[in-house]
């Protein structure tokens, strides 16, 4: 009778041993990234980023008087206006089917026969999706810098752009975390795609408005609230700490209405995004660990 030991028996010295899990995740990320770079989806995403860049370039050229008055105004409107869309679409395209696709396309059956932890597969695929999405962000940034160089004769990058890029990467991590979580919920890719798109393009914004309008509290738990720091960092004065509350009185249907707007601070936004990344990654991995390849 075989003993159900806690420690595995030592393998004979002559046998191969699989590398450490981190090294395996690196290998997996490398091959998965190669798959992304050769795929149609990569070309489609490049097309989308070029289209967004072209639209913004045309808008800035047309409204040069108001949008390109200063580097801050320019980068604020360009990066603040486009990065969010590039991030969400990249995350959906590279991460939407990352886990569900392993079941649906049966590629998971190829990997699961190997001496890998499931967490290794999850991390490897996450890193590959992050790098593919990063390539898209860098392409968008290149278009942005090209425009900036044209309007401001080279140089002069405001420090706010650097902060906004860091925030954008944190947001990418949070969106990918959520995308992987949604993808882990299903064994059919399209559900993961649709849920991520709906949530990040309209769902979280609606939730945020409902919380502010009905519950009247700061919507710190909503990712779209935190992501607004990517654009707000270009609006002086920069709030580095927690949320600023702005109470405004407006005329509405003949009478005054007092409305409250919450603007997240940079640190607050960054922390919210990182918490989203950690929580969704853990939840997604927990689901994947329990999912059966039936």
């Amino acid at each position, binding site marked *: 009778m*075989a003993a*159900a030991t806690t420690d595995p028996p030592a*393998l004979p010295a002559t046998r191969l041993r699989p590398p450490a899990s981190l090294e395996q995740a690196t*290998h997996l990320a490398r091959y*998965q990234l190669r798959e992304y770079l050769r795929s149609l989806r990569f070309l489609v995403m490049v097309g989308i980023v070029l289209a967004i860049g072209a639209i913004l370039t045309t808008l800035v050229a047309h409204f040069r008087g108001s949008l390109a008055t200063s580097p801050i105004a320019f980068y604020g409107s360009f990066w603040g206006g486009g990065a969010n869309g590039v991030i969400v679409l990249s995350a959906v395209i590279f991460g939407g089917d990352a886990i569900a696709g392993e079941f649906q396309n049966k*590629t998971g*059956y190829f990997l699961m026969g190997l*001496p*890998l932890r499931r967490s290794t597969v999850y991390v490897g695929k996450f890193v590959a999706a992050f790098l593919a999405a990063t390539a898209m962000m860098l392409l968008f940034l290149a278009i942005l810098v090209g425009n900036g160089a044209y309007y401001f004769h080279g140089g002069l990058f405001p420090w706010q752009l650097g902060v906004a890029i860091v925030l954008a990467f944190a947001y990418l991590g949070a969106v990918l975390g959520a995308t992987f979580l949604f993808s882990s919920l299903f064994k059919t890719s399209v559900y993961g795609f649709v849920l991520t798109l709906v949530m990040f393009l309209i769902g979280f914004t609606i939730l945020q408005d409902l919380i502010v309008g009905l519950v009247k509290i700061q919507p710190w738990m909503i990712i779209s609230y935190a992501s607004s720091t990517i654009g707000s960092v270009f609006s002086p004065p920069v709030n580095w700490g927690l949320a600023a509350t702005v109470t405004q009185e407006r005329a509405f249907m003949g009478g005054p209405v007092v409305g409250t707007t919450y603007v997240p601070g940079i640190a607050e936004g960054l922390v919210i995004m990182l918490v989203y990344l950690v929580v969704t990654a853990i939840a997604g991995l927990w689901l994947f660990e329990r999912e059966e390849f*039936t």
Partner: protein
Amino acid sequence: MAPPSIETQGLTKRFGRFTALQDLSLKIEGTKCVGFLGPNGAGKTTTLKLLADMIFPTRGACWINGISVQEHRRGALTDAGVLIESPEIYPSLTPNEALEMVADLRGVPPADRRDRIRTVLGEVKMDDWANQKVGRFSKGMKQRINIAAALVHDPDVLILDEPSTGLDPRGMAEVRAIVRDLKKSRRLIFMSSHILSEVVDVCDEVALIDKGKLLFHDTLDNVTRRFAEGHGSVDVTLARPLDGGDGRAKLAALPGVSDVTDLDPKRWRLKFTGGVDGQERLLEALVALRIGVVSVAESESALEEVYLSQISRGD
């Protein structure tokens, strides 16, 4: 003493109210090919998926080379090659790249990698396609790459789930030939199948499962002998056609023969009684007939009869 290559104890798997596998205890040792036989839905793939930790047991446990699959999947699968349900490979990768990935993940030393990949691609006769994208391959070609992936680290244990299912007759024959070749190297092959001729062709032992329960596990010879209850069946091939009516009468008159079937004018199936002794007497009498006997082989129908009798007994 080395632990069994594959062992399961009380392995049970339920999907909701449906019991796919019930209390399976199996111990497989040595270097041989074991056919895991059963009708569709018997629990074959469920067992193999449990062995590969793709699904989780409701009760019981399994070990590969003495290492618990459920507790140490990495260790248990280190020296096993697994092919379950015709997996798909990332379509933009070439066979070389896909096998490099497997070699990297399994820890094949870089110095040996190229040779190992070339060897296994040769074994599955895909060396001419090594640099073409897998996405363009037929199902049979993909399956051969999957077999190569299971072999790239030269495992001691090979777990194959119906490796020829879904392939055209040529693909089936090719995969079967590959498995037969793999038997030449010293390893355990545990192969599920519902194709009796495939099991007879390549396996040394057979484990029959039906409705989630193991019915028996023994060598092919023992199984056919034990369940045939003294009856045997051989296929006789002749150098020239035997005259229908007269020929049949001659064969039916041989000692111990209880039934004669003409498979074609040159091939006849004889059922006989008397076990091994009866078979010996029959062969001597056959040769003495001088009707141009060129071969006598144990009939595939022997296992078929056992299979049908055992499966129908479970109904």
